[in-house]
């Protein structure tokens, strides 16, 4: 053995074990908590289960209503509210999805009460000042114009139209007027109708348990134990694509963007975990088939990926990437080739075990990130599951076989039903 030969021997790899995740503790009506010792900071998620895009009065009123929650009340102007929240060192984020709006607050434990009092003032008494609405609308329109110059945006817009249909709130392409039409009255209606119920998840050290009465008192009129979401079911229209509706020309683009979609079974299906693993192999991590083929072997792209988008009743796989302009058509053929391979040939042991361990390692990292629990939990609530679903996922990943993945590929990777769109300088 030469003095460097020991480097040719791979160190032993030990099997991974996963901890068990538990749902947040219910503390009182509409208040839940994840607790961990020794943290000087907290994360508070206020979830409005009726305030999703799916329930919005107009195309953009739900999103704007959510974004304006911190834009002023009778007592405080937007400037005063922001000034005070900033003074106590807090950070806020507001996100609206099809099912819900979530206001997330990050802060220092020592200012918990001060921050929560300000948030309660906003959540209970938002009055959507006209001037602030004007500013936000201008910003939205400006951002929309910027987005329109992006190939990724145009490509997404095309595929949403085909997938959800032009009549759907998720498929109808955005127009500037969608923002112009939003009025203060509409926001007040939206606020009354869809922001009247909420539940809270606090992620913090146990010492903040003593402050739960503050949350109960401040939010008592809105707190609910109904933690399911009320938006109506989503339909996949999947309009058959033609040459004219699958390409959007952006003359000055230096690159093309593509997106491809395919329906799969939703998260509550028996074989969902097989599908999730199939997605991993296809394009779900750096070592995936698509990354190896299109990036690492051909150098056509900086990145290509696939992911599963879940709704309560249905789900789809989306494959996307930005690519050399002359490869946008060829990449579709490469995707189809990968489908065929997955349908016709069992995944080799080495690739299978590598992907499995990678998945389990990823779950371990995820379980280690305490502050991400709440987000994972309320996202799973959209499909009527809870964070404990990850325990089932972990167990099933251990038991998966290549035959199950082959079966999933044969069941779902149907080349004929793939919808593919792209945007770039030329077709």
């Amino acid at each position, binding site marked *: 053995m030469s003095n*460097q030969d020991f*480097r040719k021997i*791979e*160190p032993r*790899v*030990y099997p*991974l074990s996963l*901890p068990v995740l538990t749902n947040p503790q219910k503390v009182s009506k509409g208040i839940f908590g994840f607790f961990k010792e020794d*943290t*000087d*900071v907290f994360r508070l998620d206020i979830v409005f289960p009726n305030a999703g895009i799916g329930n919005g009065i107009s195309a953009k009123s739900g999103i704007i209503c959510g974004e304006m929650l911190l834009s002023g009340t009778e007592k405080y102007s937007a*400037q005063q509210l*922001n*000034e005070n929240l*900033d*003074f*106590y*060192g807090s*950070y806020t984020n507001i996100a609206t999805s099809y099912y819900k709006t979530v206001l997330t607050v*990050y*802060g*220092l434990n020592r200012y918990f009460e001060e921050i929560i009092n300000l948030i309660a003032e906003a959540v209970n008494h938002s009055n959507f000042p006209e001037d602030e609405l004007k*500013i936000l609308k*201008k*910003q939205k329109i*400006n951002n929309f*114009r*910027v987005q*329109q*110059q*992006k*190939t990724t945006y145009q490509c997404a817009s095309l595929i949403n139209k085909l997938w959800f249909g032009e009549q759907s709130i998720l498929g109808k392409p955005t127009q500037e007027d969608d923002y112009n039409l939003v009025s203060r009255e509409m926001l007040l209606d939206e606020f009354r109708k869809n922001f009247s119920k909420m539940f809270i998840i606090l992620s913090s050290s146990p010492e903040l348990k003593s402050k739960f009465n503050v949350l109960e008192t401040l939010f008592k009129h809105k707190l609910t134990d109904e933690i399911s979401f009320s938006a109506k079911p989503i339909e996949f229209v999947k309009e058959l694509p033609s040459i004219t509706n699958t390409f959007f020309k952006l003359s000055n*683009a*230096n*690159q093309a963007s593509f997106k491809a979609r395919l329906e799969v079974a939703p998260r509550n299906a028996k074989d969902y975990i097989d599908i999730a693993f199939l997605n991993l192999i296809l394009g779900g*991590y*750096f*070592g995936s088939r698509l990354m190896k083929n299109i990036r690492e*072997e*051909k*150098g*056509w*792209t*900086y990145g290509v990926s696939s992911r599963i988008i879940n709704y309560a009743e249905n789900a789809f796989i989306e494959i996307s990437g*930005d*690519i*050399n302009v002359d490869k946008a058509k060829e990449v579709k053929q490469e995707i189809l080739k990968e489908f065929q391979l997955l349908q016709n040939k069992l995944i080799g042991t*080495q690739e299978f*075990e590598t*992907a499995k*361990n*990678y998945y389990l*390692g*990823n779950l*371990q*990292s995820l379980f*280690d*990130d*305490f*502050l991400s629990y709440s987000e994972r939990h309320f996202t799973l609530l959209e499909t009527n599951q809870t964070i404990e679903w990850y325990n089932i996922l972990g167990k099933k990943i251990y038991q998966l076989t290549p035959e199950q993945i082959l079966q999933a590929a044969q069941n779902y990777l149907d080349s004929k039903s793939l919808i593919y769109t792209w945007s770039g300088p030329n077709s």
Partner: protein
Amino acid sequence: MIKYSEFVLDNGLKVIHYHDSKTPLAILNVLYNVGSRDEDPNHTGLAHLFEHLMFSGSANIPEFDTPLQKAGGTNNAFTNTDITNYYQTVPAENIETAFWLESDRMLSLSFKQEALDVQKGVVVQEFRQRYLNQPYGDFWLKLRPLIYKNHPYQWATIGKDVSHVEKTNLNDIKSFFKKFYNPSNAIMCVAGNITLERTKELCSKWFSPIPAGNTNPNVYPKENEQKAAVIETVYEDVPQDMIAIAFKSVSRTDKRYYAADLLSDILGRAESSRLFDNLVRKQNIFNSISAYVSGEAGEGSFIIQGRTNPGVTPEKASDAIWEQIEALKQEGNLSDNELQKVNNKAETAYQFGMLQVLNVAMALCLSKNIGDIEIINNEPKFIRSVTVNDVRDFAMNFLTKERSVTLNYLSRERK
């Protein structure tokens, strides 16, 4: 308080150990003291392209990613103007795999033409995706050479031009490796659920046998003092004008850096900031605006940038920014309360940052690389010690018209 240990291997590799028994994970973070500032002005983007090649196989291991994935690990890297940083996150019981992989690529890469050709293609696509195919994407490519005339901070990490990436050959790669990818030019942090003894044992096995090599002297051309304002106007296919006013600032190790950082927060960090409140909310001149410091190890920059509302001329926008800067310089215009606000924001950001063991590992390496590892613990104290006068002094000395660089990045429709 982050408690860590340090030791140095005979080949000069500086090792930091940070123990955290609450996580099931372990981190191996290696920082090389080489960034885009170390490139030839006629061949830029090399440090970043090199980072890509570090994943294309090494002397004894044909593929980097697969063994790590098999051990349940993930990895990534980034290059900036000053450094190149590689990190691996692995279940703690499998940390030796990370040592094996990281040490082998420090020993030698496989230097294959095919891998170079593929990665050049990938980097060209990254160049397009991030800088050329986005509205305002080349903003920094245009601003940097206006701020810096001599120093290599004048080009971005991705490089000046796609052609620089395309012309790279294997000899360039081999020389770059020999010059910079040596134990004596690196800092490694082993963090997470691993003991100091185990760390020493694994370092001794995997890293000690690697020859020392050269250390980067970090000597760069100096900037001349700027004596007159620079104003540049470009016309691009963007929907709305963007105005940026930039200034050369101080290095990351200069105590005044914290005053600069807090000043940028006071001016333009959030919606309660002066620039947003006055120029977006009250005067309706800007659609969005922010201020920030770039934080390089050397003389960094202080930037104010915003997109204007339709009908606003660049002159009016620029004057409005200057009015805010000048107001801040007036005595009595900045209160302890306003300073306390940005102080509290900085503390929250610091506390959240230190919750993740990977962030701690990176911060330890970065602090060590700029010459004072204790920055990781002292930063909150340094921030708290900044006074109203420190902030005003910085504004008066650095944010002056003759030191300013204005880039009017205008919509072509205006032309």
